[in-house]
């Protein structure tokens, strides 16, 4: 066999190995990275017991060398991690979700304030390290929820559309729907009420007892908008008055949990690495 071909072969194999290992090494995360979460979580102050759950997403290397074993929200011992599981495996990363629950009775005992805003959390890693990482903006607000409207159905789809259906327990008027979010979402979130786009012109929406109102929503982040890489949980406040003109408030979750392609998850990792080194 000609020596020249042997050398070319060895060179090609070396390039393949060095190249692949360089790419692999460049993609590795030094520690798990939390995605950005922009949540507003209303807690009904009339709730006597139970928990309110929410979730956080994070990225680890595909081999899961270092994982998050615990998490602490500063000054909020009433938030506890309950579980975590794998969402999707990518070429280099694993997208994981951890579930957290807010212990409502414990939160109600915490009289320090009526709402809490968390921008950073402390995470405990499986290698024994502790890190403070940005989490986005998670606001927990106390709210007095009315029973006049009762949620009958709700759902979401992977195309980032969803709906919520509510039934009136007595004759009432919905006078407004106010979007409360830790990050402005007007450009990306479209809501409709009974098929009509959400504008002031559609109010009041009058409901007889037992009649239903349906809210549809759609998230859209045109182009390569990096805001679409974050997770959102918007608090849509349904405001109105009952048959005796008593005002009421009902909070409705409008959530956005994105699905990522391999290229998108690489972009997410790159962006987060820059911020969470």
């Amino acid at each position, binding site marked *: 066999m000609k020596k020249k071909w042997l050398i070319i072969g060895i060179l090609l194999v070396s390039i393949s190995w060095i190249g692949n290992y360089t790419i*692999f090494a460049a993609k590795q995360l030094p520690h798990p990275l939390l995605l950005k979460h922009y949540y507003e979580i209303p807690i009904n102050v009339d709730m006597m017991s139970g928990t309110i759950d929410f979730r956080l997403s994070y990225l680890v290397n595909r081999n899961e060398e270092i994982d998050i074993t615990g998490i602490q929200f500063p000054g909020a011992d009433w938030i506890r991690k309950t579980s975590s599981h794998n969402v999707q495996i990518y070429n280099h990363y694993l997208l994981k979700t951890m579930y957290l629950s807010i212990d409502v009775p414990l939160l109600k005992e915490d009289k320090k304030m009526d709402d809490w805003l968390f921008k950073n959390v402390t995470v405990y890693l499986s290698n024994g390290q502790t890190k403070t990482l940005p989490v986005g903006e998670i606001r927990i607000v106390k709210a007095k929820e009315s029973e006049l409207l009762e949620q009958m159905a709700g759902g979401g789809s992977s195309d980032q559309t969803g709906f919520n259906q509510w039934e009136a327990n007595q004759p009432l008027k919905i006078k407004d729907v106010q979007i409360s979010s830790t990050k402005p979402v007007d450009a990306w979130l479209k809501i409709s009420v009974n098929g009509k786009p959400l504008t002031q012109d559609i109010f009041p929406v009058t409901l007889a007892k037992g009649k239903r109102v349906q809210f549809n929503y759609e998230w859209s982040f045109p182009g390569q908008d990096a805001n679409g890489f974050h997770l959102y949980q918007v608090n849509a406040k349904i405001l109105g008055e009952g048959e005796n003109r008593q005002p009421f408030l009902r909070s409705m979750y409008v959530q956005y949990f994105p699905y990522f392609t391999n290229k998108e998850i690489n972009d997410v990792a790159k962006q987060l690495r820059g911020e969470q080194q």
Partner: protein
Amino acid sequence: MKQGIGLLFWGFFFVLIDINVMRIDLIPDFIGYFMVLTGVKKLEAQGLAFPRVRPILILLAILSIPGTIQWGTINLIDQGVQPTSLFHLGILSSLVFMSLHLMVGVGILQGLRKQALEMENQSLASKGQQGIYSYTVSTFLLLLIYPFVINTSLYVGTLLFIGIGIAYIIIQLIFLFFLRSFRISL
């Protein structure tokens, strides 16, 4: 000479076959390599030449000793070895073994081809030449593709991994068939 080639055949066959009982390889690879080494020595005593093959065989035999016991990934992780390190170690050891095997295989094929020429067996010599080309090119191709396993999706990576494993076994079987046909033609 038949006995020498028989040792090469069975030695390489033992290296190819793994029978694990209670995490121990009942046919350890180093025994196979020592059989090949003995075969090479016997053939060299009869005038055949296999340059550089003997030291590589000794190296292969030594390197294969730890593989006699299947350590078990979970046990090693429990002892603090990182999964990535194990993964990389596995891939790196495959690279080393495949490269050393290539050198030994080509060295043996060259020696046998030369012998076939001296015996004026043109057909066997040309088979040997083809064997050298195909063994080298196919091993190089596998070595070229192998590292892509670490940068592809789990599905593609697993398919690549299994595909490369099967292809490598086929290459080794073809090599064994060549040794067998050389022995028969003597």
